[in-house]
Structures are given as C-alpha cells and as structure tokens.
C-alpha cells in the first residue's frame, strides 16, 4: 500500500506518546524515590534509576524491532510463543529463585528473567488466535472450555510459583471473553460474588444467610408465576450460599497467613500499622501528605527515606502522590485512562478479529494492573504485589508491557494491509 518503507508512518501516535510519557514519568519517579546525596548521577548503574535507564533503552529497541517485524508474524507465531512460555513457567518451578516468598525468577548469568511477566503477553496472543479462528462461537461450551484452559494453564502455573498477584491478572481476560460474546451475566455474577466475598468476611454468617434467603423470598413473590424463574432463584440462593461457604473455607484453609491478614487489614478488621498494615498505612501517609500540588521534585520524605516499602517497584505511585500531589496523580491516572480508551477505540477499528481481541487483552491486562496497583497504594485493594505498568522499576515488567503494547501498535499499523 502507500509508503511501505516508513514503519513509523501508520502507527497510532496517541498510544506511542502516552507510552513515552508514562515511561519517562516512571523513570523520574524511580529517581526521586531512591534519590540520595551520595548518588546524584542519573546514570549511576548501582542504583535502580540507573538500571531502569538501561531497561528503558532496551524497551525502546524492542519497540522499534516489533515495529519492523512483519505484521503477519504475530498471529502466526501465537501458539508457539504460548507453548514456549508455558514451558518456561514449568522451568521456573524447577530452578527458580526465591524473591520475597514467590519463586518466579530464572537466572541467566547475572540477568534475571521473570517468565510470568511475559506469559501474559503469550496468553493474550494465544487467546486472540483461538477466538479469531473461523467459525468459533462464544456460545459453544467447547469454546468456553478451551478459552478457560488457555487462560487457566499459565495462571495455575504462576499460582504454583506462589505469585498470587500475577496469577490474579489472568482474571482480567474475562472482559475479553465478554467482548467476544460471553454472557454479560458473567460480569454481574462476578460482581455479586465479589460482594459476597467481602460480606462473608465482614458480616456474621447467620446474618448473611438470612439476607440471602430474604432476597430470594422477595424475588420469589415477584416472579412465582413462572416455574423456571423459581428454579433460577433457588439456584441463585444455593450458589450464593455455596460461595459464602467456599470463601469462608478458602480464607481459613487455603489462603496463607499473610494473605489473610492483608485482606483483614484492608477491610479494617485488623488494625496493625506496624505489622501487616504497615505498607498500606505508610503508602497512604506518603500520598496523603502530597496535598494538592505535592512537595515538589526530590522533596518527598516518605518515599525517599524508605518509610514506604518497595517504593521504586510496587509502591512507585506513592512518589507521584507525594511529590506531585493530587495534580500529578490526576495526570497519571488520566494518561492511563486515555491510553485504555485509545486501545479500545483502536481495537474496535480493526478489521482483523485477531487484532481486535489482542487489543482488548492489552487493555484488560493494563487495566487490571492499574486497578490493583493503585488501589493497593490508596488502600482500596489488598496488598497484591503487581507492578504499575511502565512505571514500576524492573526490566521484565517494563519489557513485557512494551512488547504487549507495541505488538498491538504494530498490528494496528498493519491493519490496512490485512484483507479480512
């Protein structure tokens, strides 16, 4: 088509610009969060920001390479990529290093690779590939099962690595399935299940059961004329009760001690500002002390002086909140929202089903990370250690998000060359 040579010609500038802005702001935040007088050089490679500079350089190269690669490549290599990463996840289980209780790293020389970060990308590709296959219908049970397997396999393997946070991310694919025709009830069901989950923890079971029963009765009086509806209501009540029981069981028997306390702290059932609640408490203090305009670049005390733990990785948003205040937080969240909107917008304009589904996957993964990470720092979500895309320190995370996003940008740039 027109101007085949210019690889930058057809790319979506919105996404690229936001990507560059977020990465740049992320680096500035990392610099500020670990800044001290002894290490002032911005390229001090003993410091996180020095290393991150290298990762950013690498990610730009990766982005560029992806834009150069032929657009046909990705769809074609979806399954092989998926299989490779599934194998890598298996390898991790055997030879991995223990980082903070989660085993998820492979050492290759001095280089540490975290396959679980890249597995999201591979899963997204495989799912897109599968759902874009001709005559696949979401309504078919088989489709549902295969989709669930594609998503569930890496999630289970990651769960076995004890990295619950990264495993939870795979739940985000439910939006992709919804977009591709899965019944909307699944979202409502998910929402109600979440409400029940929280209620199980907060309200005595006897009260909860009475409420469930009560609601069931009310519905019964409204719809009792139709036998089918009565059955549905009965099933609903049963399922709700089952959820309550299983949540109760999971909390007390499946979850580990630290996970249980994190949830309890979030719900305000446990107050332990020096122990389990320390992270969130300090994180809220850091963000809250930023005020409207923040304390200014390098003026943050809470993040710089280590009151906030993991301040350059999972809690990087604290630096934004503390040094740039509400205005800075607004800008960051705004940029993410624009990015999500743009991805959905661009996905919808794809002619290729594969590209569209892949795009939705990108948006959902980014959204889930954003929701859990920022939710955690402001005390709205339990402490689940997953990075803030493009912001958090760490090569694996940055590169995997870069790949994830730029493959989509490439697919979009390539869309005009695809004949459906």
């Amino acid at each position, binding site marked *: 088509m027109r101007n085949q040579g210019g690889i930058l010609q057809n790319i979506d500038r919105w996404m690229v610009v936001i990507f560059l802005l977020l990465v740049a702001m992320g680096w500035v935040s990392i610099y500020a969060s670990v800044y001290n007088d002894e290490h002032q050089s911005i390229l001090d490679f003993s410091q996180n920001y020095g290393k991150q500079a290298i990762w950013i350089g690498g990610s730009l190269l990766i982005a560029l390479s992806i834009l150069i690669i032929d657009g046909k490549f990705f769809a074609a290599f979806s399954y092989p990529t998926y299989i490779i990463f599934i194998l890598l996840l298996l390898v991790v289980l055997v030879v991995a290093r223990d980082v903070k209780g989660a085993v998820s790293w492979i050492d290759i020389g001095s280089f540490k690779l975290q396959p679980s970060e890249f597995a999201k990308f591979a899963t997204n590709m495989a799912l897109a590939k599968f759902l874009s296959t001709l005559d696949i219908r979401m309504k078919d049970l088989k489709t549902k099962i295969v989709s669930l397997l594609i998503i569930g396999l890496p999630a289970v393997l990651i769960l076995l690595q004890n990295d619950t946070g990264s495993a939870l991310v795979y739940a985000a694919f439910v939006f992709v399935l919804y977009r591709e025709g899965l019944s909307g009830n699944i979202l409502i069901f998910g929402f109600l299940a979440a409400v029940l989950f929280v209620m199980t923890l907060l309200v005595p079971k006897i009260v909860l059961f009475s409420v469930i029963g009560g609601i069931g009765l009310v519905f019964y009086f409204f719809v009792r004329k139709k036998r089918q509806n009565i059955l549905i209501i009965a099933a609903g009540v049963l399922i709700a009760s089952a959820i309550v029981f299983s949540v109760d069981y999971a909390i007390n028997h499946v979850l580990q001690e630290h996970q249980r306390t994190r949830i309890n702290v979030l719900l305000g059932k446990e107050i332990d500002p020096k122990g389990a609640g320390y992270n969130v408490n300090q994180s809220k203090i850091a963000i809250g002390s930023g005020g409207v305009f923040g304390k200014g670049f390098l003026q943050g005390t809470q993040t710089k002086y280590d009151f906030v733990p993991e301040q350059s990785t999972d809690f990087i948003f604290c630096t934004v909140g503390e040094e740039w205040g509400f205005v800075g937080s607004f800008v960051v*969240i705004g940029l993410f929202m624009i990015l999500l909107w743009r991805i959905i917008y661009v996905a919808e304009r794809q002619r290729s089903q594969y590209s569209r589904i892949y795009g939705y996957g990108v948006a959902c993964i980014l959204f889930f990370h954003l929701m859990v990470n920022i939710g955690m720092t402001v005390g709205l979500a339990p402490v689940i250690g997953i990075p803030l895309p493009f912001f958090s320190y760490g090569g694996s995370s940055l590169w995997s998000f870069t790949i994830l996003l730029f493959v989509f940008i490439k697919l979009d740039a390539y869309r005009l060359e695809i004949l459906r």
Partner: protein
Amino acid sequence: MNVSQGRSSVILLIFFSVGFIFLIRLFTIQVIDDSYKASADDNAIRKVTEYPARGLIYDRKGKLLVYNEPVYDLMIIPKQAKNTDTAQFCKLVRITSSEYADLFRKAKNYSQVKPSIFIKQLSVETYGTLQEVLFKFPGFYVQPRTLRKYPDPMAAHLFGYIGEVDTNITKKDPYYKEGDYIGKSGIEQSYEKVLRGKRGTRTMLVDVFNREKGSFHEGKFDTSAVAGQNLTLSLDATLQAYGEKLFQNKVGGVVAIDPSSGEILACVSSPGYDPNLLVGRMRTKNYATLLFEPTKPLFNRALMAYYPPGSTFKLINDLIAEQEGVLFPNTAYYCDGGYHMGSQTVKCDARHGSLTLQMAIAHSCNTYHCYVFRSTMDQKRFKTSEEGYLNWRNHVLTFGIGKRLFSDLPQELKGNVPSVDYYDRYFGKGRWKSSTVVSLSIGQGELGITPLQMANTMCIIANKGYYYVPHIVKAISDSAGISPHFMEKQYTDVQAKYYDIVIDGMESVVESGTAAGSKIKDIVVCGKTGTAQNPHGRDHSLFVGFAPKENPKIAIGIMVENGGWGSDWGAPIATLMIEKYLRDSISRPELEKRMFEGVVLPKIYMEERLKEDKKKQEKKDSLATKAIVAERKK
C-alpha cells in the same frame, strides 16, 4: 456490531469508573484529609535537642563551687545493632552478658528504630576506651550530657540537687520533656530558670531507620542552645566549711548573715552529706541510703527545723515592751529565784536580786522577763487578755518569726507563734490569760523558730529596726541583678531608739554574762545564749548574736540539738565563726579544738545508731538492689 458496540462501552465504563473512584479517593486523602501530612512529619521529622550547659556557681570571693562534668549516655538503636560482639562489648562497658540481654530487650521493647539510653552516664574513662572501638558496634552511639560536680563537698543542702522531671512537671510546664533534668531542691530549684539556660533544637530529616538525612529547610527552624547563667553566691566558702567542721558529730544548724545586706554568709545543717553523692548513676541509691539515716541528713535544719528559741527570745520581748512603753532601761524587778503566780513558779537559775534591763539580759533572768511579758500583755488599754496577746503577737511577726521570710531558698519554713485560735482551742475561749502563757516570755511553750529566723532577728537588732530578706545569691551573670525584693528594708514596728539598751545588754552577755566564756579579744560581740527545754531529751543549746558592736558585719543564729546550755556549744561555735569571718584567724585554739572534737549526738540517735548499724547494712544492700531495679525499669 451493535451488540459489540454496547459491550465496548460497558468495558470502557467499567475502566473509567475505577479511574473515577481512584480520583475521588486521592482527592479525599490528598486534599481533604490533613491528618496524613501530620503523620508524614511525624515519620520523617525528628527534633534533636541540644542541651545547654547549666550555669556555674561561685562563692562571694569568686571560688568555684559547682561546675559541670561531662558524662556520656550510651545510646542504642536496636534495629541497627546487629552482629554485636557481645563479649567484647560487655567487657568494655563492664556489664555481664545477661545484663546486656536485659538492657537490649528493654531497648527493643521501647522501640526498634528510635534511640534510647542503653547505659546511663558512662564515666570519662569507660567512654575513652569505648569511643575508640565504637565504630565496631553499629547501632550504638554516645550522647554527651553534663553532671554537677562539687570540687569541695560542702553546703549540700544549699545547692540542692538535680533529678529527672516527673510527670507532674511535664504536664504543667511545656518546657520540660520526659527525661529532662530539673533542680529539685536548694539553689538548683529556686534558680532553675536562670541556671538551666535555653535548650536548642535542630529539626532533622530522618529515614525509616532513624538515620539523620540532613537538616529540615536548611536549618530555618533551628535554634542553638544558650548556656545557663552563672550565679555568684553571697556564701563565704571558707566560713561555710569552717562551720561544717565545727558541727561535725553534732546535730543542728547555724546561719550567718551580713546584716547590712541580708546576704547569707554561711548556712550549715548538720549532719550534712557530700553533694557529689546525689549526682549521676548512684543518685537513686545514695538518696535512699541518706533518707533512712536516723540523723536525717537530707533534712535542712537551718531552714526547716523549728526550735523553741528559749532565752534568746527575751530580747524580742524586751524590745516589744519598750515600744509599748511598759519597759524602760532603768525598770527594776526583784528576782528571788523565781516568778510566782499563786501556787505556780517559773524558776530562775539564780537569785538575781533587784536588777535592771541590761543586767537582766546579761544574766538571762527569767523572773525579770516574766514581769516584762505580763506587763506588755496586761496593759490597761486591753479589755481582754486575747487583745493583749494579739498586740504582742503582731509585734513578734514583724521580726520575721512565725511567717516565711521568702528568701531565695525554697525549703524555708515559717516557724510558729501560736495563734489566738490555738489557745482558745487548747484552754477554751476566755479561759487563758497572760499567766497561762507566761512561758512565752522566756521563749518556751509552743514557739518555734528556725536558725535562719534566729539569724534574721539578729540582723534586725544589729540594724536597729529593720532587715533585708535573707538571700544566698548575690549576683547573676548577664542579668540586671537579683530581685529588688532583696533590696528593700523590712521594718519592724519597734523604733530604732529602743535597741541601744538591748544591744548593751547583749554586749554584757558576752563580756560578763552567760556567754563570758566565749569572749573574743578585741572584737565586741553582742549575743544572747539560750537553753531550750526539749520534751524529747536534753536541752538544746542556742546562741544568737552579731559583731562587731559598731557597724556590725555578721549576724548569727545557732542551734545545737541536745547541746545543753547555750554557753556550752552554741556560743563557742558562733563566736569562733564570727572570729573566722572577721579576722580569718582564731585566737582561741583550745576552744576551737574542743569544738572540733566534741561529740554531741542526741542520745536517741546514738542508741539508734548502734541498733541500726547492723540493720542498716542489710537495708542498704536491699535498697541498693531495689534502686537499681527501679532505675532499670525507668
């Protein structure tokens, strides 16, 4: 396509809702709620206090009496104290490894990251050896502090002592914080605000391990410490030391004042103690030991002990009677060995025959003074004896007896002149008269007067009618001077012209009267002995006086508990001190030797001393352990 359009909107809606919820949350904690800012300051801003040096104390001749000695508190931040070579460390600071474990646990319980005192007040020597290797022990550091040091142990009661503030004070006065030191008695207490100086603060930024990260806003809010002001006392260190030496193995007190200014020259309370005992790490232990001594060395007898003034009080009664116009220099009464009231008799020491005022003072005639007192109280103008008594009592109060003088020594008590109420309660209203309370005429009965007040009455007589409020501080460095309260003449209501005859009588006391044995060659001492009856044992030996007669330089009041006659111990010690002060040499070495060597310990103390000797040792041991335990608990 329509369906999917709707679905993409649903998804976007969910995305945006979450973003919106975050923004609301952020707005709440960043813009609306202020508490996070305070918490952040709490986290990262540490106020470091700089302690000023406490003011020094000099005597009237510029001799240094109290200074500061540096000591070092060993501090610990448990979280940073890792891989400590405990064996070496314990050896250095001289504790056992189990003590180390206890102290470490205590510090850890207080805080992992905040510093606390590990060992209080290391000696300079321990500090010296420790300092060289301290770098090997991360988490430990040394914080300098100062302790009071007294080069010549004397005047412990005057100086008082310093101790940690208690919660009562920290609640009332925001200047003080937990762990601060404050003057708890004596000069340290009354001049606390002058001596303490001004604390400085530095506001530091600290990280999560409490490591200093630089000053907050380049030190904009920092203040530097201002050292306390130095005090020059009116105390004459030589005289004070001499007085304390004369009082060794005796119980009682003596106060010497310069009548021309009210400056206290010496203030001895015996037994005393070495002020260095109530300093530093051993303070609690030593305090407990002193507290349980039967002779009560912590009790400042010079300011706090009431004694019946005995015959020394006759002078006051004479002055009042003169002012009332019922006594004249040539008034004569006849003494047949006692004063008779019906069946009762106030005995006199001798049959003095007929005498006039001067001789009555010189020989301390009881009979004469009973007449004087009754004539004062039973004047015709009074309708009731109550009225007569009140008139007399008001005169007495103007002599600074029965009320606080408000000197600059905090422990001063007011003594006692019985009130009308007291007698009404004791005898019944209207059922007492001058004969009932006639023992007041010879300074017995319920009268109580402190050695400071005794010396002050001598200032009044030496000055012929007024005194300056006695005070111990003569000058404060960097300040306009002492309170004007100490510069004002306090008049009695006895006019100046009435004093001469009393002074003549006092001269005769030493010249040829009851204190003739304490005469000093070439110095005219005016004095009066007193022998105060004491229900608990032997009489107390008292003496008041001033010298020289013309232009008096020193006024003195002394009390030796259970010393017997005023002339036995009171007069000799007082006149030796007068001689020492006026001439700095002693013309009566024999007398001086006798006073130095004399043992006048009240019988009750002697017995108790033997009895308690064994007990004391046991008690001491258990108290010491208790004190240490208490100290640790703090």
